[in-house]
């Protein structure tokens, strides 16, 4: 049984989960769900997909906790790996990716911005909204490095572990993704002028 959840390692939590310890599973879920949910949301731009992916990731953990091997990487990398596959599958099922011109009903904006006072923070909100759409418009290979390295602030080595590629690949994809985003920003500024 789980005694001190905060000090228990992920490996131990998953071992206890395998043995049917509900508390251990709940502790593991609460520890990691935020990161998985944000990653899925930032990758898909849709709350429904993000929630579905989060649920599915932990369903996988629940049904096959023995698949996690601490020697092969951290629990975070393991969870991001599952989430990444699920998000990409969801995106394949829907449109390949959103474009800046998509989301005509402002679905994302209204859901995510909520009841904020837009009048007082209109410039900042518009900028964030523009960036969100620009990130979602990136091809998945570039989007995931931006989400992992810039939005989640993961280091290159950890991102490479999640993506299953070399650190150099992460670095070059991130460089290219940032260039694409800056290009979009400049184009928008030119249009505004």
């Amino acid at each position, binding site marked *: 049984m789980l005694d001190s959840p905060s000090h228990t390692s992920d490996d131990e939590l998953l071992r206890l989960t395998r043995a049917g310890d509900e508390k251990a599973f709940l502790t593991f879920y609460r520890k990691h769900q935020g990161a998985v*949910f944000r990653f899925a949301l930032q990758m898909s731009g849709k709350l429904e997909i993000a*929630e579905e992916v*989060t649920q599915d990731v932990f369903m996988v953990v629940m049904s096959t906790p023995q698949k996690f091997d601490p020697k092969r990487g951290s629990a975070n990398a393991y969870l991001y790996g599952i989430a990444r596959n699920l998000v990409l599958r969801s995106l394949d099922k829907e449109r390949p990716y959103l474009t800046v011109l998509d989301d005509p009903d402002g679905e994302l904006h209204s859901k995510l911005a909520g009841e904020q006072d837009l009048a007082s923070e209109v410039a900042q909100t518009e900028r964030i909204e523009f960036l969100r759409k620009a*990130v979602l418009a990136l091809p998945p290979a570039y989007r995931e490095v931006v989400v992992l390295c*810039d939005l989640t602030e993961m280091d290159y080595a950890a991102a490479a572990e999640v993506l299953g590629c070399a650190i150099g690949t992460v670095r070059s994809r991130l460089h290219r993704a940032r260039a694409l985003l*800056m290009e979009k920003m400049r184009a928008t500024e030119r249009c505004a002028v």
Partner: protein
Amino acid sequence: MSENERELVEGLRALASAEPREASSRIEKTLLATFRARAERRRRAVWGSVVVAGGIAAMLIVFLWVSAVQSAKRQAASVHPAVVATAGDASEPDASEPAVVSAQYALDSDDPAASFYPLPEADGLPPAETTMVVRVEMPLSSLRLMGLPFGESSGADLVQADVLLGQDGLARGVRLIQ
């Protein structure tokens, strides 16, 4: 990092902090319910296995017990005639000796096959692979009825004889002790 790039990264950080931080509590409830259902299923499966294993073990024990009882009955039935045969003559010094003598013993004693009179009915039986010798006491007239060449005497004359049994329990031959 250029000025534009720094500005972009700052904007992305602002975007990250503007996003919802957590999944809804509905997911936690769903996962918890699923976890409990799975645990319950697993508990049932374990108990089911225990019950099935217990049933199989009980059946095995009953089967072994019945086999042992039947085997004991068969053994008792094969010894019985000899015991009856020897129990009647208490004056005999070797009455308490085992009446069943192993075939090996019989074979070792000066070509025992030659010392047995073959029974006429034994001709139609398959050859004996393993044999057992049973000592009995019987009227001399019975030996004549078996077709063996013994002279006339009163039916009350009892003689001791060894009967050679095959693996099927059927008599193959007989020899007189007295």
